[in-house]
């Protein structure tokens, strides 16, 4: 511990997953996340783990489902178009109450889109990309350090709540190199779980991992139980970072790489005498609504900064019950706003809402 190494964000995910005791990785090549697979392909065979390049993202997520059913830590990674293909499997994993990690290093869309960074899978990640009532815990790293830390956290949260967790990164953080202190290595856990399929050994009744309930009353009950768990997560797991919010009159809301850019803009605005701060959602679901609602009591307006046409802004408006104006600074298609662009939007917000 204490040693910093220079790593790409994607590699930090892979190394951190191994250190979290994950020994099974399934993926399919897609830019800009390929380094995750390449790293796993090198390391897994050396430590008795599984790296398997699947025939498709669909197969990869179903292999994840298979390992998750045995109660072991498992992950897959992909980028936007590939994550769309995984949605069927994600819905089944959520419906079977299994833990796993899914990494989305986002690129611009829709369709084949581009290969440059984006945050336009926000809706898909936070509102349920697959069919049915379910949630993912969605973590949004904004540095290589957080890629590593949140990968470890993701596995712990997945195991704690028996549900899939998504690390929603973007091409910038995936590709950039930064010094990172890797989490301590933990050995894989092989504890018996009362739901996992491991063979009955003729000592117990058979376990069934399943999301099919043909009796509507039973299926409804399952959904209600799951949502009780989700309610607890909303109460206990919302995470955010607060930056210069103590005396702030205006609040920027941004996550991931957009938050990095916005921090510079907020600092520059402060130099101009504008009392601006930032709330950076670290969990996108659960969304840190309470923190924003609290801020709405004192600030005059919010600015949502996103690498999309404006998706998170809907959650910001909901969080503050539209009690304050919420404006938008957006770039799309793989474009990233400059700090100056964000600063201009901050000035507009501050000027527009009467200082």
């Amino acid at each position, binding site marked *: 511990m204490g040693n910093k190494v220079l790593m790409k964000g994607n590699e930090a995910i892979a190394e951190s997953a191994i250190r979290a005791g994950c020994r*099974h990785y*399934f993926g399919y090549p897609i830019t800009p996340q390929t380094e995750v697979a390449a790293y796993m392909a090198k390391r897994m065979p050396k430590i008795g783990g*599984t790296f*398997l390049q*699947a*025939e*498709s993202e*669909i*197969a*990869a997520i*179903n*292999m*994840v*489902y*298979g*390992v*998750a*059913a*045995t109660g*072991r830590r*498992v992950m897959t990674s992909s980028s936007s178009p590939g994550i769309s293909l995984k949605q*069927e*499997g994600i819905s*089944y994993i959520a419906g*079977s109450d299994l833990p796993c990690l899914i990494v989305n290093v986002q690129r611009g869309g829709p369709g084949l889109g581009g290969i440059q960074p984006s945050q336009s899978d926000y809706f898909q990640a936070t509102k349920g990309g697959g069919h049915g009532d379910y949630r993912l815990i969605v973590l949004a790293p904004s540095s290589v350090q957080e890629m590593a830390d949140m990968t470890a956290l993701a596995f712990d949260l997945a195991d704690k709540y028996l549900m899939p967790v998504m690390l929603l990164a973007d091409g910038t953080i995936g590709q950039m190199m930064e010094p990172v202190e890797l989490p301590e290595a933990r050995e894989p856990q092989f504890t018996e779980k009362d739901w996992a*399929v*491991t*063979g*009955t*050994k*003729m*000592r117990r009744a*058979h*376990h*069934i*991992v*399943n*999301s*099919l309930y043909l009796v509507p009353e039973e299926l409804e009950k399952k959904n209600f139980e799951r949502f009780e768990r989700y309610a607890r997560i909303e109460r206990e797991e919302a995470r955010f970072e607060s930056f210069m919010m103590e005396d702030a009159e205006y609040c920027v809301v941004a996550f991931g790489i957009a938050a990095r850019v916005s921090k510079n803009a907020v600092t520059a605005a402060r130099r101009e005498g504008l009392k601006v701060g930032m709330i950076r959602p670290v969990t996108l679901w659960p969304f840190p609504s309470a923190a924003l609602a609290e801020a709405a009591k004192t600030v005059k307006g919010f600015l949502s900064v996103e690498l999309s046409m404006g998706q998170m802004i809907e959650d910001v408006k909901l969080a503050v019950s539209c009690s304050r104006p919420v404006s938008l600074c957006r770039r799309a298609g793989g474009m990233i706003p400059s700090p100056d662009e964000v600063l201009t939007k901050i000035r507009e917000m501050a000027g527009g809402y009467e200082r």
Partner: protein
Amino acid sequence: MTVFEKPKSLTDAEFHYCPGCTHGIIHRLVAEAIDALGIEGRAIGVAPVGCAVMAYNYFACDMVEAAHGRAPAVATGIKRSLPENIVFTYQGDGDLASIGMAETVHAATRNENITVIFVNNAIYGMTGGQMAPTSLPGQVTQTSPYGRDVSVAGYPVKVAELLSSLDGPEFIARVAVNNVKNVRNAKKIIEKAFQNQIEGKGFSLVEVVSSCPTNWGMTPDNALKWVEEKMIPYYPLGVFKDRSAGKEEDKA
């Protein structure tokens, strides 16, 4: 003296299958193989989407329900996680040969050490009798009401032949369960497909030519005749690939 009893590897749950459906026989053969090899305690089955969707209630071993067609991928994950366990899938023709063709071919070409039981009854049973990838030319189904027109719908997929063309898989065979002789042979072949996995030989698939009286619109008797007269000529029975046997011959 007990001369006939239920295999230990089947639960007491009542099958939901239609009268005359051969899924019951095939379930039994799989359970008998598991019993005979003494692997119930380490067997893990993967159920499909289709008529056998609730197979997880019938097999007494640990079970996982997969999405439509994805059973070989799910089984791959289970087997990679627990290589000492015996992992099998039980799939129908729509599941395995249509929506799951990619998962099937790639599990086979990786020689994934799993056992696949593939029930070919030339129709989608669960959804009420639509044309399957294995429906015969001219076969009347709900979605081929004038008979399967190969100029529009293409030809049936011969799964055993197709997979045999790959270098990867260990064992590919086709059996039928339309008469006593064929059932006995099917039992032997299914047991071999599990034995191969125990010995670490790799991907073993048994295609079981089966009947669907309900959706074929026939009596159970006539359905078995149709298997004999129409299905088996199109889907010939036999062992299509047995790599280990081939290797032994080379040595001799």
